[in-house]
């Protein structure tokens, strides 16, 4: 009797569990959307098009790849779901971008909000995302003031926060510089969040060191002529010149430096490392020779534990875009954004924005992509993916090589100082 009752209960339990399981699966399947909506902006024209389009095209490349495999695994729904990138063109205008960010949140009701590339076009997204309690997946908006302890609605994915960028370069100058005879430094930067914060980063490290900043001036980001500025700096006879700008600034500065016949013992600029192909095309091998820059992932070739490695990604890029968009750091940045999104959706408990934040933070220190180790500070700022200081050495065939100088554990050569 007892055995029969037990057997009946067991069968009933199995039946109940089966019914529940089927029901739950059905409910889950019903809840699962046909696709995950990722909202973002890009700039097809205007001053930020050059940094925005590669990032956006990398996202599109990822969308095409994952959707060809049925989508990405989304843990809250327990299955693969295709993604749909809803993207609008802000034309490099912050006012247009503000309207479009609002549209993505309120009209399109995107599941995930991704900012446009760069600090200028991200700056308007930060307060909007916060107001709507949407987590902003900030791709390359690295301005220091975006990250505050009281704002949980932002995470920086693909670049370190701006004032951390120069850490290795500034430490090289303070620690190795005096041995080389570097004492007087000139600092010329474009007045925007990205490069202004980097200038602050340099100044912070220089404080209390033997480095004397003999020139410290900003110029508008649309500056296209540096000849007079170069002469002004030359008159101060610095041992090293640091120029921080967007691609247009670095190109104009390096070309004017070459054109004016002025030689500085050390010149540091940002973009020869980040967009090497572009700078080679516009400045040339000779103009880049022996300048210092951030060493790009293309020179380091990190071994990723998630996603394609650099060679595979570049091959996929060239196959899809051929030579219509230069492959460089911004293309890598867009792909890193995609990888973080993919990992986040695969591990988040729910699609709630705070759950997404928790999932992104859980990746900190554990995710290694082709851009290095992903690491977040508590306010959402990226503190991993730091680029070492490198020096460009001409190869003589129109190409350049990078010699890593600092930090010491990553160095593979010594600085050629003063530059020939």
């Amino acid at each position, binding site marked *: 009797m007892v055995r029969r009752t037990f057997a009946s209960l067991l069968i009933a339990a199995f039946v109940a569990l089966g019914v529940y399981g089927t029901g739950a699966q059905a409910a889950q399947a019903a809840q699962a959307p046909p696709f995950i909506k990722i909202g973002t902006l890009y*700039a*097809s*024209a*205007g*001053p930020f*098009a*050059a940094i*925005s*389009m590669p990032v956006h095209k990398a996202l599109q490349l990822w969308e095409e790849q994952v959707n060809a495999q049925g989508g990405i695994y989304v843990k809250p729904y327990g299955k693969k779901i295709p993604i749909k990138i809803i993207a609008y063109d802000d034309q*490099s205008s912050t006012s247009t971008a503000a309207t479009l960010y609002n549209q993505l949140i309120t009209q399109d009701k995107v599941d995930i909000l991704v900012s446009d590339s760069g600090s200028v076009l991200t700056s308007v997204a930060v307060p909007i995302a916060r107001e709507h309690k949407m987590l902003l997946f900030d791709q390359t908006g690295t301005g220091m003031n975006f990250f505050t302890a009281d704002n949980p609605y932002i995470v920086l994915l693909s670049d370190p926060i701006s004032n951390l960028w120069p850490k290795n370069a500034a430490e090289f100058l303070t620690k190795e510089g005096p041995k080389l005879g570097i004492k007087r430094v000139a600092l010329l930067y474009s*007045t925007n969040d990205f490069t202004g914060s980097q200038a602050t980063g340099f100044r912070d490290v220089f404080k209390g060191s033997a480095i004397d900043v003999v020139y410290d*001036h*900003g*110029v*508008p980001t*649309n*500056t*296209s*002529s540096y*000849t*007079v*500025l170069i*002469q*002004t700096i030359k*008159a101060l006879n610095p041992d090293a010149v640091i120029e921080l700008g967007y*691609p*247009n600034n670095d*190109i*104009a*500065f390096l*070309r*004017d430096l*070459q*054109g*004016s*016949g002025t030689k500085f013992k050390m010149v540091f600029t940002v973009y020869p490392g980040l967009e090497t192909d*572009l700078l080679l*095309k*516009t*400045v*040339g091998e*000779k*103009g880049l020779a022996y300048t210092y820059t951030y060493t790009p992932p293309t020179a380091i070739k990190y071994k990723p534990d998630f996603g394609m490695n650099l060679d595979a990604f570049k091959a996929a890029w060239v196959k899809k875009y051929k030579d*219509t*968009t*230069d492959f460089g750091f911004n293309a890598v940045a867009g792909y890193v954004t995609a990888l973080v999104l993919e990992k986040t959706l695969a591990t988040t408990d729910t699609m709630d924005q705070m759950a997404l934040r928790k999932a992104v933070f859980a990746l900190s220190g554990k995710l290694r992509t082709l851009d290095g180790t992903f690491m977040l500070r508590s306010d959402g700022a990226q503190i991993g993916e730091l680029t070492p200081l490198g020096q460009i050495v001409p190869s003589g065939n129109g190409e350049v090589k990078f010699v890593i100088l600092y930090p010491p554990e990553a160095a593979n050569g010594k600085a050629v100082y003063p530059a020939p």
Partner: protein
Amino acid sequence: MLEYSILAGILFGLYFGLVALGLNLIFGVMKIVNLAHGDFLMLGAYGAYIVFTDFHVNPLVTLLAEIVIFVIIGFPLYYLLVPRLQASRDPEMLSLILFFGLSQVIEALATLGFGSSERSIPGTVLGSAPISIFQQTFPVAWVVSGSVSLLAVGAIYVYLYRTRLGQLTRAVMAQREEALSTGIDVQRISAIAFGIGIAGAAVAGVLSPFMMGSITPAMGVSVTITSFAVIVMGSLGNPLGTVAGGIIYGIALMFMQTYFSSWANLLPYLLLIAILLVKPTGLFGRRVRNA
């Protein structure tokens, strides 16, 4: 640094005089504001870039070819756009809207065609050794650009003051209705001026990779704004006053960069406001009426 800033300002200003020259010629003859002026400059720049990268043709050769090409392009474009515009009640105001639209179209098409990344021509193409002027060294490209600007201004002067067509053009500039009543083919004269105007922009565009570092499809808007400031300074409608406006702009910019570098981008607007407040007709305003 003072001498260097002044000399650099003159060279840079001569170039900006060339940049703005065509815009002022078109305004002087047609009383329309070509807000797509900077975009024609951009097209000239990409023309030189493509011809150089694909066929290794020196930009100075391309420059000559572009003068012919853009004058030819200017003719049908003029007849397509301007006569209808001038038949409207407020051609000046409507020209702002129409040419703004044209500017957007050109920029969008250029982005599709050329991509959004910066492009440039190696600076060494025009010569590698810097040139010394009064013991101050300048990039050879600046000296070449300044020289080309002077030649272009000279050519415009000869055209306006030493040719029959130029005489007719000045008649149209002085009083369009009267010119029409005396039997001058105003449309033809205007079409030629329009072609010359955009050819001037294209010539400046050929030199822009050397003066501005790089080119992008988006460069047109800022070029147009600066050009507008330059022609208001030199006086609207007076092509030769543009050169003076350019030199004032160039010297002021170099001083700003030397002493107040962070504020340099405000310069065109500050000069524009100052001129409009102090001498609304521009520095050479009187000469417009006597042209």
